[in-house]
């Protein structure tokens, strides 16, 4: 069963294809993007994006995670990723990144809002959590705009093995 396609006012969310690899590497491999996240590797080496994309269809089929490429409806170019990971027991974690050329236009909020709606109404997920580096408040603003509530501040080990301050958000179905 294929992943769904979600169309918002300006964006198309759909599965990544292997041919997206070079663009993912270029956008997510930009240090300005990766340093805003806990998980994106840096440097982002050749083949990493294709390896990541190749896990998606099995993870979708097994209901473990759902990664969506974010594309502009106008022009179809790839601008980022919005994903649900750690899906189990009607819960999931939301994650996202947007390529630097596309920052500041509300695309992340638009994409995350649509995916959260899909998760709640179509996948039966009733609790979604998300976390962001305290040093990246822009990500927290996305969480607030889509109706998530701040739960706590804590620390987590980042990609370099350092303690990083993070903020935890969640949204539950009422």
């Amino acid at each position, binding site marked *: *069963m*294929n992943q*769904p*396609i*979600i*169309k*918002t*006012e300006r964006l198309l969310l759909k599965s990544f294809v292997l041919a997206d690899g070079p663009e993912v590497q270029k956008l997510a491999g930009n240090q300005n993007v990766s340093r805003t996240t806990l998980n994106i590797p840096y440097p982002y080496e050749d083949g990493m994006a294709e390896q990541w994309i190749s896990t998606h269809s099995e993870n979708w089929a097994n209901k473990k995670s759902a990664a969506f490429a974010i594309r502009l409806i106008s022009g179809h170019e790839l601008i980022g990723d919005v994903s649900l990971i750690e899906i189990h027991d009607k819960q999931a974690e939301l994650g996202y990144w947007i390529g630097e050329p596309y920052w500041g236009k509300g695309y992340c909020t638009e994409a995350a809002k*649509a995916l959260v*709606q*899909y998760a709640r*109404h*179509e996948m039966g997920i009733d609790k979604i959590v998300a976390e962001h580096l305290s040093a990246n408040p822009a990500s927290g603003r996305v969480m607030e705009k889509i109706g998530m509530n701040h739960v706590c501040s804590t620390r987590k080990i980042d990609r370099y093995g350092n303690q990083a301050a993070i903020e935890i958000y969640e949204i539950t179905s009422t």
Partner: protein
Amino acid sequence: MDIIIRSARIGDEEAIANVHITAWQVAYKQFMSHEYLSSLSVAERTDSWKNTLRNPGNGKYLIAKVSGVIRGFAVYGPARDEDLDETVSELVALNIHPDSWRIKLGSSLLSAVIENVSQEQYKSINLWVINGNTPAIKLYENFGFKHTGHSKIDNSHSGNPIHEIRYSKSLR
């Protein structure tokens, strides 16, 4: 107004039946009799869709939701015509509720179908359309479908003979 396109599943049958019948009653009124179209029953069509979704066979079923409501569906699978081999797929049905005709929902669903069949073993996709169904033919031609020259008279739907023509699009 978000649009969602996903595989159909059990539980969608009544909404699909509703789209199916409403779309036919409006789109096919110049091709099928009023008596036949007004006799179509949502309850009966719901039962038949429930059965289809439980036993999909080779068919694949996509639905399109607009603002949370199912407003369109598409059915596709391997081509059923005897002169075609396993490299040919077929768009068996594409129906959109008349309230959603203006938002290009048919285009969104057709794009999804073409993308899905392109990822399978198929080299082309075929379809049958009622001769004279101009909006549908225009949509298919916009997507690169071309009339193959084949035609047939289908008596199975409404009692009235329906003249259908075959279109095909290469996926390579």
